[in-house]
């Protein structure tokens, strides 16, 4: 057993038992961050804070929500919204955060793509981040079911039908997932469980992995410069703070991070108090009805691009295209064959690839929202084909990139 001495203070008492000084050093004061990174690198912290908001508001909603097909709708739209003191606040925070979290995830992702932060030793950061994206998507989908409105019901119907695998007709699998022939009580209960327990646990684990993956390769920087973190840290610790290329995570970098978080939170609560409805679909204020489909079904905005990739094709091709869109981002570190981990602006054709991908996804998102008719389906079809084409082209255009 370790040797314990009489503690001189509470801090010392804890330190002997929990090594809090070491912990603080590893996690904060000697966790080194490059100096030349901009506000886009604060999105990780913004996401962590948003996840915290989702967790806390979710806990308060959980106290009154009823996972029962007859009660769920009223427990949300009447009990929580009208009766529970400040219940509306938790619901609006939860709803807005669920939507905004995807906006920030996309910014975070595209920042990573632009600066090549998935390359050369940072592959696990990218992969764990993509796993987090999938986990958040599952979390969002299962949460969307819970108010048991019309969109909830029909989104549940359509998404679970995807698992029949088109011509494979795995209807047994779909019924197994639902626990019934259609979305019903068993379905609501199991998605409730997934939403409040299993997926959040997975997310917490993945966040741990995502952070852990940063430890050794360290965070990338604006110029894609390869920094010798050990040497720079030594310089910093010996007093040459100005000459060192790195700073401490806490409290130095944190102060910048928190500045961004502060601005973000003002924007966030502006939405919560004045524009919460952007995150709520009017159709979901009708109770679920298994005998009537809403005239126009679409998912939340953050799934529109992958939904649009599915839509213009026949069932099987559509499913394959959809599956392609779901997994292809995982492959990014391996499809990008260039040795450079520098901003897209300093690379070859990748510069155009990046902007083409971004614009294409915005077009897909817009087309996913409008009804699938006439000109819109044509644009949607070409945008979907462009998406697939861009990914096929990626290894070729990056292979010939010169080292910078």
């Amino acid at each position, binding site marked *: 057993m370790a040797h314990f001495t009489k503690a001189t203070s509470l801090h010392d008492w804890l330190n002997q038992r929990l090594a809090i000084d070491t912990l603080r050093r590893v996690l904060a004061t000697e966790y080194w961050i490059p100096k030349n990174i901009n506000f886009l690198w604060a999105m990780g912290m913004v996401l962590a804070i948003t996840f915290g908001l989702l967790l806390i508001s979710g806990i308060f909603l959980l106290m009154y929500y009823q996972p029962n097909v007859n009660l769920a709708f009223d427990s949300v739209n009447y009990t929580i919204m009208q009766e529970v003191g400040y219940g509306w606040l938790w619901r609006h925070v939860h709803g807005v955060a669920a939507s905004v979290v995807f906006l920030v995830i996309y910014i975070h992702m595209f920042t990573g793509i632009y600066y090549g932060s998935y390359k050369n030793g940072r592959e696990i950061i990218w992969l764990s981040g993509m796993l987090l994206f999938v986990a958040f998507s599952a979390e969002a989908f299962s949460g969307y079911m819970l108010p048991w409105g019309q969109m909830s019901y029909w989104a549940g*119907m359509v998404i679970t039908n995807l698992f029949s695998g088109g011509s494979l007709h795995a*209807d047994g699998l779909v019924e197994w997932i639902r*626990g019934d*022939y259609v979305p019903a009580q068993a379905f609501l209960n199991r998605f409730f469980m997934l939403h409040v327990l299993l997926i959040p646990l997975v997310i917490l684990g993945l966040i741990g992995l995502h952070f852990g993956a940063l430890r050794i390769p360290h965070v990338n920087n604006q110029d894609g410069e390869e920094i010798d973190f050990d040497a720079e840290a030594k310089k910093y610790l010996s007093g040459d703070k100005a000459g060192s290329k790195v700073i401490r995570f806490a409290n130095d970098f944190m102060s910048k991070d928190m500045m961004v978080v502060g601005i973000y939170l003002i924007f966030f609560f502006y939405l919560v108090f004045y524009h919460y409805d952007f995150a709520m679909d009017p159709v979901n204020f009708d109770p679920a009805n298994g*005998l009537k*489909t809403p005239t126009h079904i679409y998912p939340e905005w953050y799934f529109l691009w992958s939904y649009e990739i599915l839509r213009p094709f026949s*069932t099987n091709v*559509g499913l394959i295209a959809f599956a392609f869109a779901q997994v292809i981002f995982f492959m990014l570190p391996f499809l990008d064959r260039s040795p450079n981990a520098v901003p897209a602006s300093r690379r070859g054709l990748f510069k155009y690839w990046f902007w083409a991908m971004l614009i294409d996804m915005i077009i897909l998102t817009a087309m996913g929202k409008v009804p699938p008719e006439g000109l819109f389906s044509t644009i949607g079809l070409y945008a979907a084909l462009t998406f697939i084409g861009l990914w096929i082209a990626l290894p070729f255009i990056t292979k010939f990139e010169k080292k910078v």
Partner: protein
Amino acid sequence: MKNSSRRGFMGKAFGAVAGVGAVASLYAMKRTWDPLPSVKAAGFTTLDMSAYKENELVTEKWRGKPIFVLKQNAEMVKKAQANPKDMERLIKIGNDYFMVCVGLCTHLGCIPGYNPDEQSFLCACHGGMYDFTAEVTKAPPPRGLDIPPFKIDGMKIVLGEEGPEYKKMLETGVTLKV
């Protein structure tokens, strides 16, 4: 050496026990996720076919799913007779012909809407279309609407039971099992 082989044996023995336990618990988890027996048992609906009006779509309910019943009028029957594929999808009860099918689009499960003037269905979700016998006429749906298992009983039909007429439809591929 002796010790390490003993440890090796213990490791393998533990692995075997854990393996059996893991398989058993996975099976239990799979079964827990299965639909309940009560859900499976409550699967029968009887429809009285003498009550329907011609070219008027009625939506019934079976296993929580919408069931379309459309009594064909003379004009539709004539159109169907010209096309054997359409005729096979109709159910003859007494002297009348009926289209009975699950009202969920075979694409991704939305409920198509019926237009009695054009005698066709439109699925608004992704623009799929069906004719008056619910045969598909415009993709993305891969096939016509599925016909639920039925048994003819005089002027009634029982949904959920497989009568000879339904079995024949399965054999000839007019519908898939739902």
